[in-house]
């Protein structure tokens, strides 16, 4: 089986259509399960009370914002290096969802910050670097929208995405490198998490839901982008221009 044939937008279009329900339906189920565990099973925190329940949307949104940026940069880089149209289209499709999760992480973080720190916003390293991530997403989307030629737009976007990827480790390690108002990592790759098991379960279920949602939405948007970019080309080809 030649998997490279799926690098063609026209070939991938129907495959993406078939994949969408496999991500969208489990995502909806996991959102329901995650919210149930988060609100009905997880106990009230002894320090923060019920305000901590924002964690079930804030942390998954923040992780998705960073993860989607890295994926966007990888796809943009592949598209630029190998002149792969589908990879560039994928980068464009990821950008809006990534920006949305960044906005969600900033807004829910602000709403969590007020009862816990006494302020909606502080110019600390974690919050400022996340705001820069939002500006990078907006820059990528605006740059692509400002250039008429899709190939040139993809190349310009790829440069910005690849340069901006340096901000992701800065966001992640900011709480270790600088003395910030933001709390340290709740979950570590190595070592025990610092929260109770039902809280951790709800957070991981919500993370899985956000991940599946992102894949479904990105595939829907990718199909739109394929239609937008290919329809003119195919129509002009039909009439022999």
């Amino acid at each position, binding site marked *: 089986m030649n998997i490279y044939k799926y690098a063609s937008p026209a070939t991938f279009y129907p495959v993406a259509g078939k994949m969408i329900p496999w991500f969208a339906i489990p995502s909806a189920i996991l959102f329901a399960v995650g919210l149930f565990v988060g609100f009905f*099973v997880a106990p009230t925190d002894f320090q923060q009370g*019920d305000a901590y*329940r924002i964690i079930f949307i804030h942390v998954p949104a923040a992780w998705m914002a960073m993860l989607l940026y890295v994926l966007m940069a990888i796809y943009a880089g592949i598209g630029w290096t190998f002149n792969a149209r589908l990879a560039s289209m994928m980068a464009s499709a990821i950008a809006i969802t990534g920006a949305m999760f960044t906005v969600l992480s900033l*807004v829910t973080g602000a709403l*969590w910050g007020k009862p816990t720190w006494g302020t909606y916003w502080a110019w600390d390293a974690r919050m400022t670097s996340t705001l820069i991530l939002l500006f990078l997403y907006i820059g990528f989307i605006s740059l692509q929208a400002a250039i008429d030629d899709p190939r040139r737009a993809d190349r310009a976007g790829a440069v910005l995405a690849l340069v901006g990827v340096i901000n992701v480790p800065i966001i992640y390690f900011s709480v270790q490198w600088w003395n910030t108002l933001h709390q340290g990592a709740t979950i570590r790759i190595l070592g025990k998490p610092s929260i109770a098991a039902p809280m951790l379960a709800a957070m991981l279920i919500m993370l899985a839901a956000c991940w599946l949602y992102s894949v479904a939405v990105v595939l829907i948007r990718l199909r739109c982008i394929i*239609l937008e970019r290919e329809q003119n080309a195919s129509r*002009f080809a039909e*009439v022999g221009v």
Partner: protein
Amino acid sequence: MNWPDLSMGGYGFYVWGSYIFSLIAIVWELWSLSHRKKAIVQQQQLSRSVPASVLRESANETTS
């Protein structure tokens, strides 16, 4: 199973505000995608109704 207090111990505005904002963002994203798809389909139908001669003319205008 713990039934949560709807006032969230006095933090209801912040907790429910976060979830309502998230719901609005997700609904907006799904609505904008469906709107975008509808626009593409409409544009495709419009494009098919444009005669080939007009398309050739417009291509000549943009390339010359």
